[in-house]
């Protein structure tokens, strides 16, 4: 079955109780609240602690995929990147990389994965029980500005124009 144009699966992942690891889920929450006011948009939000093999199933019948996550090493405030299916060694862990999820999808479905992107938001503290840091909260605001625009015009060619250029 072919998906209708503009359908997006939006993954927000991380542990909300581990400081800035909450950036992915918080950004997803923000998007979900906003999407409530825009029912015309075909966005499927998926929240989880970490990515696993079953998330490959969430890619079925989607035109675009976007992964929202905290990142301890990306440029501040965020990095927006295009990703491709990749067979990396995250297969051997409890948490797959976004590219590995795409790869699993292609192998089990025998279909080409939808165009996929990561929105990595810079975090600085990841201790259990810590709140979101002030710096991460600022990064969250900046990332939301980008994300809102992406959701309004969910086309791969449009998203590609917004990719981060500074690494």
């Amino acid at each position, binding site marked *: 079955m072919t998906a209708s144009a503009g359908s997006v699966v939006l993954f927000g992942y991380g542990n909300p109780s581990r400081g800035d690891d909450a950036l992915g889920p918080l950004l997803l929450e923000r998007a979900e609240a906003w999407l409530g006011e825009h029912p015309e948009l075909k966005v499927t939000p998926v929240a989880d602690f970490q990515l696993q093999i079953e998330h490959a199933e969430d890619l079925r019948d989607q035109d675009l995929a976007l992964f929202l996550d905290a990142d301890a090493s990306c440029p501040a405030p965020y990095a927006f990147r295009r990703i491709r299916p990749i067979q990396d060694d995250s297969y051997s862990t409890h948490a797959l990389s976004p590219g590995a999820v795409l790869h699993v999808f292609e*192998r089990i479905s025998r279909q080409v994965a939808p165009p996929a992107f990561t929105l990595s938001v810079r975090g600085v503290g990841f201790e*259990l029980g810590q709140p979101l840091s002030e710096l991460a909260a600022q990064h969250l605001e900046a990332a939301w500005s980008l994300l809102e625009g992406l959701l309004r015009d969910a086309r791969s060619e449009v998203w590609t124009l917004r990719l981060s250029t500074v690494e």
Partner: protein
Amino acid sequence: MSPSARLQLETASHPEALKRIVIEPLTRVEGHGKVTLLMDEDDHVRQARLHIVEFRGFEKFIQGRPYWEVPVLVQRLCGICPVSHHLAAAKAVDMLVGARQLTPTADKLRRLLHYGQILQSHALHFFHLSSPDLLFGFDADVATRNIIGVIAAHPDLAVQGVKLRKYGQEVIRVLSGKRIHGVFAIPGGVNKAFSREDREYLAKDIDQVVAWSRGAVEIARSLYVGKLETSESFGAFRSNFLSLTTPKGDFELYDGALRARDDKGQTIFDQVDCAHYLRYLHEEVKSWSYMKFPFIVSLGNDEGWYRVGPLARINNAERMPTPLAEEARKVFMAMGKGEPVHATLAYHWARMIELLYAAEAIQGLLSDADIFGTDLMVKGEPALEGIGVIEAPRGTLFHHYKVDETGAIVKANLIVSTTNNNTAMNTAVREVAAQYLDGKKLTEGLLNHIEVAIRAYDPCLSCATHALGKMPLQVELIDADGQVVDRLVKGADGELSGEAV
């Protein structure tokens, strides 16, 4: 080898004269673990220790919170088994609100949630994390010894693994409203009735799930007996076993009483009320590990350590409550020839028997009219102390809280499954190190033997922080003077590379 003899490998007499190999962290193991091997001048393993560094702070995280928040809060301790923490906490909080006996509906719906968790966790572990080692061999090329290799060589098997995991996740989502962070078990019961639409949604696939689970048991069995000598000797040792059982001594995952048996299957204690666990189990602190070492009080800390999890549960059970799982249990137990099965690699086979049990139990509950009841809550005389014990996928999980008059948690004690298996995993590491690493060059394949042994226990070494760039792997060889003489680095993407020192 007796437990006390095994300590000879744990504590070398002159560690200052040894050099160390450090494996950090472990792959296919949740969280952050480190293995240190101290070797002498002739490269013989003299000391082996598994360090688990991330368990600090769990109790502190809970203290001061109102008890009614705790079942939701503790889900964030772990991204791998949040439902287990949720239910163990809920059982402890049941005691705080005086809910001694839940309604049949609440009890069965909580069980349904729990079996969904067991199903998804066991499926992930076997199909994704362990089957590559078992199918391709511990020394196989790392490029193929992973789930993608399984997809390529055994596509049907790989897809079944993904779909079994997904089904378990769907059970959780349907009941709690979300895959994660859901709220379902609340003090004294559950917060949502189960609809007939939910039942129909889950029932349409359950026969297939049972059939796949049955096939998984056969795969695990054939992999075990296909290389019987290796299966029985790899990281093998004898131990005591601890688990919950029903009043009749049958297999139980959600409730029941504590049973401990020794390495010959003789009873150490039985039908112990979980509320009295501290009379029977203590925890030893060792200077070199953040994680404690539980032991059975009557046997002492040298002889009283035990194993938990699938192997312990199957060994300790008189029967499985479902027919296909019971059939599988009998085949499994025949390997012990009248005694418990002790092989480390037998964990995988036992785990798949539990997977089959969980699938059958879900199937049974979906045909049980009680699940549609609307009597969801009970209350009783409040108490200031609550203890909840559950069989999590990895083993027995204890949550113990004390509250003040305002309901705030003033003390919390958690013994997680991985802590219960702490001595056992250290023992497995030492056995494998002595068997495979002694005097040999450090290679990824050899190191994987150690990881294979640890992975059999499916340890959850930590919680769900996973942010990119946070978890590199570092393997270090350190001499007796503390100098790093060799290093192997694993990047955030999992790529291994050598690094000159």
